[in-house]
């Protein structure tokens, strides 16, 4: 059970994340193939591998630098829409961490970092909540984190609630019509289909929540 995430968590957390995404690889590919091009599984695999290859080499880096460089490495190896959004999120998360001179992310820090990151995604992709993207998983997760914090929950508990909210948010993309990315071209055929990026965002939060509980 962890009260905060530090630079020592970067490697094991990302190792768990990579393993969890790899286990879901076929499911992610299938979701992206339904109304996209089916490359999201490959993106996650290549991106996570690059991050994992890089992290052990960054012995001296600050927490902010770790997230920045891991995010950029993810997009170098898994360049794509999703990769660009991950990189943009990482850049903003790193900036928040540095601006606030954070050496660890406790629950309030996690809320600030995730909010900045999500704003970075909004700015890069120009989509808004309800446009059937990963934002529809991220914003409910942030709101849930805030509520959990107000209710005095600990980091692991708050993240578990947030992961559940993200998953509910991803599920709730089904009835929506895609407005961004490749799926936008498919118009009515996207109705009834879960957004692939939102599904991955929910998986990421679940993985982090499980790590925080360990």
């Amino acid at each position, binding site marked *: 059970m962890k009260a905060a995430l530090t630079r020592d968590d970067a490697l094991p957390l990302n190792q768990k994340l990579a393993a969890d995404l790899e286990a879901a690889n076929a499911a992610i*590919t299938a979701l992206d*193939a339904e109304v*996209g*091009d*089916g*490359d999201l*599984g*490959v*993106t996650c*695999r*290549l991106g996570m591998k690059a991050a994992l290859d890089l992290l052990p080499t960054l012995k001296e880096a600050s927490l902010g630098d770790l997230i920045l460089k891991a995010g*950029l490495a993810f*997009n*170098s*190896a*898994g*360049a*794509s*829409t*999703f*990769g*660009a*959004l991950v*990189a*943009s999120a990482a850049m903003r998360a790193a900036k928040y961490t540095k601006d606030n001179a954070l050496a660890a992310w406790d629950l309030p820090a996690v809320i600030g970092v995730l909010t900045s990151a999500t704003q970075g995604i909004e700015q*890069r*992709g120009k989509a808004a909540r309800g446009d059937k993207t990963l934002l529809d998983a991220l914003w409910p997760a942030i709101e849930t984190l805030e509520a959990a914090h107000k209710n005095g929950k600990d980091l692991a508990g708050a993240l578990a609630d947030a992961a559940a909210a993200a998953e509910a948010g991803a599920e709730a993309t089904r009835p929506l019509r895609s407005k*961004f*990315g*490749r799926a*936008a*071209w*498919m*118009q009515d*055929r996207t109705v009834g289909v879960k957004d692939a990026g939102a599904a991955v965002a929910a998986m990421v939060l679940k993985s982090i929540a499980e790590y925080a509980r360990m």
Partner: protein
Amino acid sequence: MKKILNHPEAFADETIEGILLAHPHHLKRAPGTPRGLVRADAPVAGQVAIATGGGSGHIPVFLGYVGPGLLHGVSIGNVFSSPSVEAMVAVTKAIHAGTGVLYLYGNYGGDIMNFDMSAELCEAEGVEVKSVRVRDDVVSAPKSAAEKRRAVAGLFFAYKIAGAKAATGADLAAVTATAQRVVENTCSMGVALSPCTIPAVGKPTFTIGEDEMELGMGIHGEAGIERGRLKTADEIAQVMTERVLADLSFRSGDQVAVLVNGLGATPPEELYLLFRKAHQVLAGHGVQIQRVFIGEYATSMEMAGASISLLKLDAELLSLLDAPAYSPFLPQWRSAR
């Protein structure tokens, strides 16, 4: 669909290796990235440099359009995925001759976001960058939302003409304006008969019945947009040509260049069947065919399918289309006599 492969995840890198071994006088790597190729003589003094980029799996798109009279550099992603920002920045620096760089590429989310990041980084280092996005697929969005349309084989016209314009020594504003004029006068419609398989995924990108076709295919292995019963060559060509004609609001006497593009597995013979009918339809509308391009100008690996693209011509576009250019990845062409 079976493939001739080594390690699926090495596909893009090994392809690039093969290309550099085959064409060492034509292309070289951009310093600092394995995923950027530039003309062997880059940077070309006195020319605005044009960079493109996109996923692997579309040859001759994207890297096949780098060459004299064409583009100056290309960044290369994994199959059907955007190139990385690093590769884009490296290519930009390797081709920049001090007179600015045009990013000319397909209107795909991942590419846009990465090219935008690259432009921000390069501009911070003093390189002037403009961007033009090709978006010729008529089925992918209504005309009122044309900026959402995706790029298909119409990329050919934009690359050929913008490259010729840059070769004249025109400045960045002029090259950008010409590229934009091509984009606004190009419209395509395609049909997909079978999917393809991304090597690292190993399964077809979509499934489709033996009696079905998809109108409005994407070149990234996406399914098309309208699914229908497989029609005859004449019916398919008629639907495609009429729809493209309507979108570009042609009038009798207008002059066009026609591109009938094969997606990969569709034989040239079938492309000529499509052209045969397109020619009849265009003649029926009084539209004059000035130039014809038939072959593989933008592919999706082993997908079966084809598209018809029209470019509405004016005198400048025609003369730039006819200008000499060379790439070993493209079919031969020369102006009519």
